[in-house]
């Protein structure tokens, strides 16, 4: 009795367990999960993993090459690079998660309004989104921080705002697809309220593309934070950030290349893991893209 044709965008999420298992069975998905898992572990257990206090300077051990004590070497103030990277993971993850939450929350709201109610609201929302979208991410984020002032909270807000349009667009497009399906017409024909339809039928059915977008946006947000910190308008000292560590390392590239190599490696691995995970998630959730 099984039907061969699968529903287009809204394949059931048959419980989180089997979704995770499906991801794990996919080689790319597994690689992404391991990478992301490691970074999250670093972030959560930073105080136990780090070998030294983050800001602790040691004038006798400046520019120490990687050794048994300082696994990743030390920087120009004699601070342990490994410890700073571990705490930097925490900053990256927090900034990423908070910024993406802001973006996803507002994006969902705007996308839902634009896609479901259409008309004037949609034109206005999409016009504002197009304007935000027209600016390069980093430029706009830097501008917002310049206006609001330099702080970790403002960095998160800035990255969040910059990412709202892509969520709005994703949500709006999915809502429009779902909205025109027969089961929404059917839900209306049995007398359900608009709000009930929105939350009980539309939202669960757009979850798949939304989740994929959130995962991919996380890597983008982390990269934006690193770039802003590199430019000096992101995370401010003494808080450690991979981006600002990289920035500090520029002056000592020949003298102490490990200052640059390790933060760079961590940025690359983190972004790559999130991207791979996002792609794998999309493949699992949308069978149509599997070739």
């Amino acid at each position: 009795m099984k039907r061969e044709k699968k529903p287009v965008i809204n394949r059931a999420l048959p419980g989180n367990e089997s979704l995770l298992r499906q991801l794990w069975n996919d080689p790319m998905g597994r690689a992404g999960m391991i990478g992301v898992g490691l970074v999250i572990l670093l972030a959560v257990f930073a105080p136990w993993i780090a070998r030294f206090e983050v800001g602790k300077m040691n004038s006798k051990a400046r520019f120490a090459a990687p050794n048994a004590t300082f696994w990743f070497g030390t920087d120009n103030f004699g601070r342990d690079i490994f410890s700073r990277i571990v705490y930097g993971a925490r900053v990256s993850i927090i900034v990423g998660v908070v910024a993406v939450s802001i973006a996803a929350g507002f994006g969902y709201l705007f996308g839902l309004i634009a896609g479901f109610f259409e008309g004037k609201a949609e034109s206005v929302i999409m016009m504002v989104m197009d304007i935000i979208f027209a600016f390069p991410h980093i430029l706009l984020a830097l501008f917002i921080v310049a206006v609001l002032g330099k702080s970790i909270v403002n960095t998160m807000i800035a990255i969040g705002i910059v990412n709202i349009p892509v969520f709005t667009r994703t949500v709006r497009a999915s809502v429009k697809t779902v909205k025109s399906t027969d089961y929404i017409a059917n839900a209306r024909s049995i007398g359900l309220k608009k709000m009930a339809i929105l939350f009980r039928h539309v939202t669960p059915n757009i979850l798949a593309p939304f989740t994929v977008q959130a995962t991919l946006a996380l890597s983008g947000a982390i990269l934006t934070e690193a770039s802003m910190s590199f430019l000096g308008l992101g995370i401010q000292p003494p808080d450690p950030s991979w981006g600002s560590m990289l920035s500090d390392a520029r002056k000592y590239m020949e003298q102490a290349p490990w200052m640059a190599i390790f933060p760079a490696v961590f940025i690359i691995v983190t972004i790559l893991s999130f991207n791979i995970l996002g792609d794998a998630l999309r493949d699992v959730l949308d069978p149509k893209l599997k070739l």
Partner: protein
Amino acid sequence: MNNLLEIRNLRITTLRGKSKVLLLDKVDLDIPHKCSFGIVGESGCGKSITANAIMNMLPYPLSISDGDIRYDSRNGEVELLKLDKKAIRAIRGQEISMIFQEPMTSLDPIFTVEMQMYEALAFHHPAMTRQEMRDRALEMLHRVNIPRPEQTLASYPHQLSGGQLQRIMIAIALINDPRLLLADEPTTALDVTIQAQILRLMNDLKEQNDTSIVMITHDLGVIAETCEEVAVFYAGQIVEQANVMELFHHTAHPYTLGLLQAVTSLGGESRMLYTIPGIVPPGGQWSQGCRFADRCARCTERCREAMPALTEISPGHKCRCFLNSEEVEA
């Protein structure tokens, strides 16, 4: 009120750019109690939007520009188009319900059949307990001849076949005992053997309950099998309306004749399949004369200049054609 539903002078328009385009033009319909009423016509004639207008759920940018729809509800006569949102929601599903063309996509793919049947119940009967809802759902599945109802309740839509899903759709539509069922091409997506079963089921259920059915279809075979009264739609108008026997035996309008000739039949000598030349003129491109004139073999000069009126040519048989009556549309 003698009829269950009375539609008067209904006009539906859509927006094309900034201008309004007429899609349904001055339609009058009376649906009697306990009647199966057929609406037939080609795609784009305004059949489905009429049904959607009755439920007051026309999709944007379509809107009702004129007319009224009166409905004889259990709590007295109501004007469907003048109801507020809350009142129309109470009508939907409880008084009037609807089934759609594609059973495969008419159920939400992420919920079980059970959840979706409960949803229809819970909204209109908030006090119902889960056990009562389960009993009612099982009863309905029995009535639509679903084998293994308990197992079906726990299934997801993709685990069921098209015929089963359409039975479930009918069960959901009838779960609150509506008095009017709008069936928008309910068998088009099903294969022929299943079609007959579904049509018979709908007929049986109509007899058991005090329900009228509006059967929207492009298939005259379906009409012949299920309906008592038929209205033929063409380009947003009713062109002929009669009792089903009268319509088939004393066909008056050339368009209805064309539809009848286009029905394929088994047996008899094989011949070229008859087609009506041309297409239905879309809204906004209607001529001032008869809208069927360009495709009509018996078209005259007069047909292009004036619009014939829908007049009664014999008791209960209305037709819009100068061949039968000289009357001109006001």
